[in-house]
C-alpha cells in the first residue's frame, strides 16, 4: 500500500508512535555521531546522518546484555531470568543494509536446534520502518552484496524522503497496522515518479561491482594462500570493524558479581582479538594477525555461505569508513578475483 506523510505531520506521527510503542530511531549524540536510541520526544529523532555509526543490530543484540541474574538467600541460590520485553517496539529510520543484516543475524540466532531467546523476543516484538538511502556514501557497496539502497525486504514499512514529504509503503501485516494512521494520506501519482528518480540516482552511486558472486568457491582454494601473509599487514587489530559490523555477532559471556548476587552478561567480542581464541593452557589456535584476519574474511565470505547460503556482509561500508588505517574490505574481495589490484 502506497501512502504519503507530509513533513509538517512528521513529528505528530512520531508522537503517535511513542504513545503506542517503544520507539527507537537515530539520535545525534554530538555532531557527526549518530546512534539508534530509545526516543522520548519526537524532536530527538535526527535523520541528517547518512547512516548511524552503530548499526541497528544493537537493538536486537545489544553491546552488553544481561542473560540472567542470581541471588543467594540462606543456602539457596536462585536464578532470576531477565525481564521480558514488555512493550511492542518500533525501529524507525534504519537503512536497508542494516535491515538486511538483521535477517542475517536471525539465521544464526534462530536455529533448528537452539534458539537465542534474547534475540528472538526482541525481533518478534519489533516493527521495522526502513528508510530509503538517498545518498549512499563512497564506501557503500550494498548492491554488490545482494542488497540495494531501496531494498524493501525485511521492512514492515518503508519510508522514502521526497523533500517536502515522505513516501510510505506498508509492506507486511505488521505494516498494515498503520493503514488507519491519521497522518498517512494517499500517495500522489507524482510521488512514484520522484521515487523512481531518487532510486536511479542512488543506484548510480553504488552502480560499480565488487566481485562478491562466487567468492565462496574462490576462497575454497585460498585457505593457505600467501594472500593472508600480506593482507593482515593492513590491519592493526583494533577490532572497530567487527564491533560496527551489522552482521558480526560474536560474543563473550562473563559473570559479574560475587557469591551473594550478580549477573551473567554477554558482550560483543571480536575474532580479531588475540584473547578471543587464547586457551588457558597458553595455546592459541589463531596465534597471529594472519590467522585472525583470515578468520574475519573467511567467516564472512566462505564459512557463512557454507552454512547459510549467503555472505555475512551487507556492504554498509562501516568497516571501511571507520578503520583508523584504511583497511578496505573491497580491496580484499577484489584480490580474490581476476581484478586483483597491483598492491594490497
Amino acid at each position, binding site marked *: 500500500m502506497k501512502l504519503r506523510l507530509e513533513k509538517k505531520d512528521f513529528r505528530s506521527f512520531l508522537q503517535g508512535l511513542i504513545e503506542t510503542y517503544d520507539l527507537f530511531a537515530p539520535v545525534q549524540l554530538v555532531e557527526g555521531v549518530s546512534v539508534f536510541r530509545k526516543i522520548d520526544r519526537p524532536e530527538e529523532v535526527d535523520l541528517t546522518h547518512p547512516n548511524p555509526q552503530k548499526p541497528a543490530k544493537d537493538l536486537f543484540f545489544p553491546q552488553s546484555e544481561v542473560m540472567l541474574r542470581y541471588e543467594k538467600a540462606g543456602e539457596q541460590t536462585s*536464578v532470576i531470568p531477565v525481564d521480558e520485553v514488555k512493550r511492542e517496539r518500533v525501529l524507525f529510520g534504519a537503512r536497508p543494509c542494516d535491515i538486511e543484516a538483521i535477517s542475517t543475524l536471525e539465521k544464526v540466532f534462530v536455529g533448528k536446534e537452539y534458539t537465542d*531467546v534474547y534475540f528472538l523476543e526482541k525481533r518478534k516484538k519489533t516493527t521495522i520502518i526502513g528508510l530509503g538511502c538517498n545518498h549512499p556514501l563512497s564506501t557503500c557497496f550494498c548492491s554488490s552484496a545482494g542488497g540495494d539502497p531501496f531494498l524493501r525486504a525485511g521492512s514492515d514499512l518503508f519510508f522514502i524522503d521526497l523533500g517536502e514529504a515522505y513516501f510510505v509503503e506498508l509492506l507486511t501485516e505488521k505494516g498494515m497496522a498503520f493503514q488507519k494512521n491519521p497522518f498517512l494520506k494517499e500517495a500522489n501519482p507524482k510521488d512514484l515518479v520522484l521515487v523512481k528518480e531518487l532510486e536511479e540516482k542512488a543506484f548510480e552511486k553504488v552502480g560499480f561491482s565488487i566481485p562478491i558472486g562466487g567468492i565462496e568457491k574462490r576462497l575454497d582454494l585460498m585457505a593457505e594462500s600467501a594472500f593472508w601473509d600480506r593482507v593482515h599487514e593492513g590491519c592493526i587489530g583494533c577490532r572497530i570493524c567487527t564491533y560496527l559490523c551489522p552482521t558480526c555477532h560474536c560474543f563473550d559471556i562473563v559473570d559479574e*558479581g560475587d557469591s551473594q548476587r550478580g549477573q551473567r552478561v554477554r558482550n560483543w*567480542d571480536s575474532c580479531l582479538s588475540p584473547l578471543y*581464541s587464547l586457551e*588457558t593452557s597458553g*595455546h592459541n589456535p589463531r596465534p597471529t594477525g594472519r590467522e585472525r584476519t583470515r578468520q574475519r574474511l573467511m*567467516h564472512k565470505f566462505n564459512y557463512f555461505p557454507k552454512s547459510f547460503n549467503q555472505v555475512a556482509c551487507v556492504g554498509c561500508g562501516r568497516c571501511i569508513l571507520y578503520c583508523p588505517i584504511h583497511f578496505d574490505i573491497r580491496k580484499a574481495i577484489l584480490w580474490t578475483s581476476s581484478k586483483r589490484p597491483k598492491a594490497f
Partner: protein
Amino acid sequence: MKNPYLPIPMRVKKATIETTDRMLRTLELSFLNEEDGKNFSFVPGQFCELSILGKGEAPFGIASSPTENGSLRFTINKAGLVTTALHQIEEGSEIGIRGPLGNGYPIELFKGKNVLVIGGGFAFTTLRSLIVYLLHPENRPKVKGITVIYGARMPGLLLYKEELATWQKRRDLNLVVTVDWGDMDWKGKVGLVPNVLEEVAPSSKDTYAVICGPPIMIKFTFPKLMALRFPYDRIFTSLERRMKCGIGKCGRCNIGHLYVCKDGPVFSYAELEKLPKDY
C-alpha cells in the same frame, strides 16, 4: 520457549582428588530437580557447560556413562578461574550445568566392529564414559574386541585407578596402561602412547579408532594409525576449543565452517583433513 542459556541446578554429591599433583578433581553431581534428570539423556563424548554463579562457565566432557543412572561425573583440570573455583567447591554445594552439548562418539557405527580406544592424560574422561558404556552388559555384545591404550606422564597422574584395576582383570577388554616415566612402584609399561600403539599393533580390520589426548600425542599417533592402515573415516577424535555459548552462536570455536561445540567435538580424521589447520 526453552532458554538454552539457563543452567540446570545440580548438587555436588562427591568430590575426589584423582592425581598426586592434586590438579585433577572429579565431581559427582546429582540433579536438584528429578524432572531435569529424567530429561537429561546423552551419549559418551558429549559435554556440558559447568557454571558457578559469579565465577563463570566452562565446558567439560562428561566422564560418566549414560548407563550410570542418577548422577553425572566430570573430571576437572585446575587451570583458570572457573576450574579453580570448581576445585574449591565443597560437597553439598550447588552448581549449574548446561547440556548435554555436542555430537558425541558415533556409537552406532561401532556395532559389530572392534573398537580401539587411545587416550592420553586427563583427556581420558570422555573415553571413560565410552568404555563404561561399551562394557555395560547390554552393550558389550554389540561390539567385538575392545582394546584400550591409556597413557599418562607418571603413574600418579593416571585417572580412575580403581576402575583401571578392575578393567585389567576383565577378559573381554584388552587394557594397556603406560606411563612416560615410571617410579619405584610402577610395574607396568613405560613408553609414549604412539610407541606403545606401534608395539600393540591392533589390527585395523573392522576396527574403529577413538583417540583423545593432548595435541602433541595426537600429532604423533595419527601417523602410527596410518601405518596400521586405519582408513581416515574410521579414526575419530574429540577436539577442545575455547568456548562460551556451546550452541553455535557466540562464534568462538569454529574450525572452518564447523563449530566444535555444535558440529563436534567429535570429528573423524576424514572431516578434519578437509578443514583449515586452525587447531
